[in-house]
């Protein structure tokens, strides 16, 4: 069930998060993300500009893909649980691409009353190429 509460005790190293599929990416989403984020770099809006810059055409904001990766985590942990989200942009996301975001539990640790879960997170395109790779740390509640 989406947004079900996850408890620290129930999580095991190696567990996979439910995948999140986003897209196909459309120009209107890049325009909307530009307005929402304040990143108006024309390389994400103007195909001629992007070609002249040697990029072969428009591509998505890295931060849009990072937002998708954030969502695969928060759909599972809840939005307020994220303590760290760290990514490398490994490949360009193009118009019409479909992006699947995934995560896997790497480690669990507890310090006093804080229970942390480290995740490997990534996003891949429809060809299975990783376009974003990274890590996340979330704080989860214990069962009473």
């Amino acid at each position, binding site marked *: 069930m989406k947004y079900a509460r996850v408890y620290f005790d129930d999580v095991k190293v190696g567990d996979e998060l439910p995948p999140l599929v986003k897209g196909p990416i459309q120009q209107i989403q890049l325009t*909307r993300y530009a307005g929402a984020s304040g990143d108006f*770099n024309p390389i994400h809006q103007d195909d001629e500009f992007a070609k002249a810059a040697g990029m072969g055409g428009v591509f998505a904001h890295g*931060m*849009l893909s990072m*937002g998708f990766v954030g969502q695969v985590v*928060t759909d599972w942990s809840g939005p307020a649980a994220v303590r760290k989200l760290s990514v490398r942009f490994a490949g360009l996301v193009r118009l019409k691409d479909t992006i699947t975001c995934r995560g896997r539990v790497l480690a669990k640790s507890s310090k006093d009353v804080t229970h942390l879960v480290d995740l490997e997170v990534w996003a891949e395109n429809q060809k299975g190429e990783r376009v974003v790779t990274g890590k996340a740390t979330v704080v989860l509640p214990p069962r009473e």
Partner: protein
Amino acid sequence: MPIQINKGVIGKESPPFVVTVERGKIKEFARALGDDNPLYLDDQVGQASEWGDVVAPPTFMTTFRDGADSGAFLRELGTDISRILHGEQEFEIFRPIRPGETFVCRSKVLDVYEKTGRSGPMAFVARETSVTDATNEIVAFVRHITVVRL
């Protein structure tokens, strides 16, 4: 002829800037991601939560901009917007942020270094922004690596 990057910017701190989180901006940002989580979008769900209000998505602090000419930094670096790519990004978040909160952001350039990759010579510009709240507590560090195609 590759361009020359000005490494003199290493250690440079930008003037601090203040941001206030707007309720509508959180929702606009979540919707732009296509994320319909009710803890971002539904005020009643937010009020009933342990946070007492809606919260911002983890990457929301990317909207914290100083309003100054972002081209000025690129010019000082010796480049322009057509040559830059986003290399890496990190948010270290100590607590969720909510509408109406005001924060002070302080940015500095941590490092500038060059490497040659598959697509030729590139410069990497690492920056960090600290975000502090009204009680001067650190709420987050935002770390960012910009890649400049030389």
